[in-house]
């Protein structure tokens, strides 16, 4: 089954990290990504630019509404994702628990419909 792992974390905390700490986090992400790819479990995965770059778009009654910022202001922001293909939810949860941001943030595990 395919699952999208949505990585929510406090982006300000990440920005406040030292260069060294950030290198550590990226190295941990690289390692996980390599492992998932080697096992054929990873379909995609990216870090997102901070929510300060986000634009929200709606069309209502044919009219386009474009606003600055993310869809919802939250304490933790969507900062990246993995798209994985594994046997079941337990396998997806195991991978979610290995994502470096899981210690400070939260990972939402969402099955892809009919995936």
């Amino acid at each position, binding site marked *: 089954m395919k699952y999208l792992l949505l990585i929510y974390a406090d982006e300000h905390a990440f920005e406040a990290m030292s260069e060294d700490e950030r290198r550590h986090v990226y190295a941990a992400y690289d390692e996980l990504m390599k492992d998932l790819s080697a096992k054929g479990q990873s379909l995609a995965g990216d870090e997102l630019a901070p929510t300060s770059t986000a634009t929200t778009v709606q069309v209502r009654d044919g009219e386009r509404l474009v606003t600055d910022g993310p869809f919802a202001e939250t304490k933790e922001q969507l900062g990246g994702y993995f798209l994985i293909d594994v046997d079941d939810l337990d396998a997806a949860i195991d991978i979610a628990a290995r994502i470096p941001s899981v210690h400070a943030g939260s990972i939402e595990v969402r*099955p892809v419909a009919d995936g």
Partner: protein
Amino acid sequence: MTTVGEVVDRAYRDDTGRAVATLIRVTRDFDVAEEAWQEACEQALRTWPQRGVPRDPTAWLFTAARNRAIDRLRRERVGREKTAAAMQIAELEALGDDMHEIPDDRLRLLFTCCHPSLALDARIALTLRTVAGLTTREIARAFLVPEPTLGQRLTRAKRKIRDAGIPYAVPPREALPGRLDDVRTVVYLVFNEGYEATEGELIRADLCTEAIRLARLLDHLIPDDTESGGLVALLLLQHARRAARIDASGDLITLEDQDRSRWDQQLIDEGLAIVDRSPRDGPYQLQAAIAACHDRAPRPEDTDWPRIASLYDELARMRPSPVVALNRAVAVAMADGPDAGLRLLDPLAGDLDRYHHFHAARADLLRRGGRGREAAEAYDRALALVANDAERRYLARRRTEVAV
């Protein structure tokens, strides 16, 4: 002479979990499995009165259920699903009639129903429905929710199991201890709901009985995990006191005032035997050992309070929590006097201010220490928070004893 109805009821009680568990494993479909088994039981009720009860009722019912499931798969699976259905049908046909020759699938079923990704109330409802074989109506009554609400809860849970890909499997060794804890939590919550119902009448014995049955099943399926045995013992030792816990008007009688001749000695003996042969390496085993101290005492004054206090010490080290600290304080008060207990209670006020047991325990110790006015205030606080009628009446009665 047993009637057909009794034979079917008996088979339903004893065999539902196991039959449904296997049918789910093959069909991957909770509804097909449950309904096939249900229909088989209805078919038995219709046909056995004329044709007579078969020699092996369980085998008959299981075969009928397999056939029902096969019919449904043939009828309902279309397009792409047909290939999978054909394999499932072949597997159902190969199962044979004797359910007990097939490896017991109830363990997978328990782990799936108690999966942490399901809401807690859904886990409870699903476990009672599919593993214990209670009807939707029975569960709805036990938890005082409307039947349609409970039906929706079950439907949503089953849909999540399917759509989120919750596995139908026993977790691997490294995940097993944590997942077993999850299952025991559900069983213990079922028991507690029966033992100390949050609303209305105090004890719902049938929920307690179901919880004991589930705990026994878990202990039987994974015998080398001693915590499940600890849970069985704990439930037995508490349930043994049920008849003495309530007076004729439905009011709560505390341990101290209970007529101990009304305790169920058979359950106590069984619980004590488990406690005596188990290590104390988990919270349920420790709580069972504590319950055993009470159940062993012929009179309240024979209770070994210092031992209870030291068992709570162990429990607090293993699972520190304000509620454990509260119970420990009460045990210390009983061993060393109310003031010693009150000194331990005071630091818990921040965490437990909204918990009626905290104020009730404090009130009790203040009353024993002869501090009537403070006791009355604490009873008032407990009364403002309590939800259960019988407990409220008990507290109100105590409150009048210290009235100033």
